């Protein structure tokens, strides 16, 4: 039994290494985040934005998913800036300064460039799976 366990665990380790190194579909490193993006990402976590907002459908449910808000032609960076800076009735005003708000916007712009959140209907194949390669 232990031998079988070790075999399965070895497969898991190899698979994990593949996931870490090759999970990016393009198989090429995306643009690494610059210092502003990193600062925005840290702030995203420190202010616990994920409690209310999703990215790629992962996170809280109180506010909208923000994956592609920065690239949305009807919303965009100014729209995000204004929401974060002033808050709304539902969203508290976190009293961030201009630089902090800009860093958060930079983070969301970087996230937007990583891909699309919604899978188009035509990408669903007869197997019930997606084909996102083309």
């Amino acid at each position, binding site marked *: 039994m232990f031998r079988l366990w070790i075999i399965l665990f070895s497969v898991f380790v190899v698979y994990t290494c593949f996931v*870490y190194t090759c*999970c990016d579909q393009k198989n090429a490193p*995306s643009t690494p985040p610059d210092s502003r993006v990193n600062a925005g990402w840290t702030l995203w976590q420190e202010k616990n934005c994920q409690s209310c907002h999703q990215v790629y459908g992962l996170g809280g449910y109180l506010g909208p998913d923000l994956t592609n808000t920065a690239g949305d032609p009807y919303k965009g960076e100014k729209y995000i800036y204004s929401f974060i800076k002033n808050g709304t009735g539902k969203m508290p005003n976190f009293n961030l300064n201009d630089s902090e708000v800009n860093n958060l916007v930079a983070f969301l712009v970087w996230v937007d460039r990583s891909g699309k959140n919604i899978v188009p209907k035509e990408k669903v194949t007869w197997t019930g799976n997606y084909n996102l390669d083309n």
Partner: protein
Amino acid sequence: MRNYLRLYIISALFFLAATLIFGLLASWAFLYPETYNKFLPFYQLRPFHVSAALFWIISGATAGVLFYKNGELVPGKANPITEKLFIYTWLATIVVIFACYALKKFGGREYWEFPPVLSMPLLVSWLFLIASYFIPIVKSTRDKPMYIWMWGTGIFFFMITFIEQNLWQIPWFRYSYLREVTVQWKANGSLVGSWNQMIYGTSLYLMVKISGNENIARGKTVFMFYMLGLTNLMFNWGHHIYNVPTASWIRDTSYVISMTEWIFLLKMIHDFRSTLEDIKRLKHLITYRFIIASEVWVFFNLLLTLAMSIPAINRYTHGTHITVAHSMGATIGINTMILLGSFSYMLGIDKMSESFRKNIITNYWICQASLVVFWGCLIVAGFLKGYRSVTLNIKTFQEVMMPVMPVLKAFSWAAIPMAISLIIISGMYIYRAGTMKAEIE
């Protein structure tokens, strides 16, 4: 029962009560954020609720493992020092975590929102648990039943996935957002699998002890299901990130592995008649009642999980309240029920007075009935959100949520009796644990 273990059991039950109180407050804060923002905003309540739930499940599972394993060892092989080190470090860190939340100090990722430096004492405490479990178990020469393997697997994989969950702190993992989010949800998915190994191991242990049939935990069938569970723990986490544009082989692997869960479902249907006979024979035991409730919820959650594991369906359910139904159905309906069964066994609830037991059974039924409404509301809410955002392609979030909010109001009302009934049960168990005669350490 040793005093430190009694303290641990009482703490776990307090975490359950805290989960329910914060969850209840959070559900109403979700409906009326403008009001709650003035004193206890949703972004503060949610981590309190989620972390308390995690600590209830993990502490409850490990309390059972520590309590039961000693009966499986060669006498005198247990190591109370490492057990105490684990319990005290673990509990002290949790107190600091809640203090951070109270001060609005966050910084971690989903489910572990505390400042990341606190992951270190949690990991150190877990190493003490590993020492206290594996060293005496390995030395034990007895032929090991399957629950010993399951507990060991859960403890080992919790460590691996907890470390993996913290890899985001290494800059290389953050160079690509897709990599970061993939690793994050790989870890979170397997983390759930790891505590399920501990909890299902406890369920198997309890069935052996209640029925007196040692063969349940031995043989080829139970081994096959253990390996199937382990395979799912390792590779079936991809449904969390189906819509993330990662390499397609990640989706393919998860899709194929997740379909093996049909075997669990078919086994449950196959065993239905013998389960009914067990119910007739054992329903007088409160421990068994909780186990059987968990089996019913396993059945319904498996149906939901299987549906969500098909990408074409996941496209509609992802990011909706159906995902919440999936996680709450599992944590309340399955994990909490098994853990309360385990606590009933450890605390000897079946030996208590008739009125004590009747009180628990009444609250048990209130909990089950309100959980049905609670779970159903989440599915309806998720269906509406998925339909409006994906099929109707409504772009405005407020417009998508308009018909969803009344359903979530019904959900919040259903949460009240469910939370009260579970708080009463946990309060009665705390009372029982507090009044039990302690063994000299």
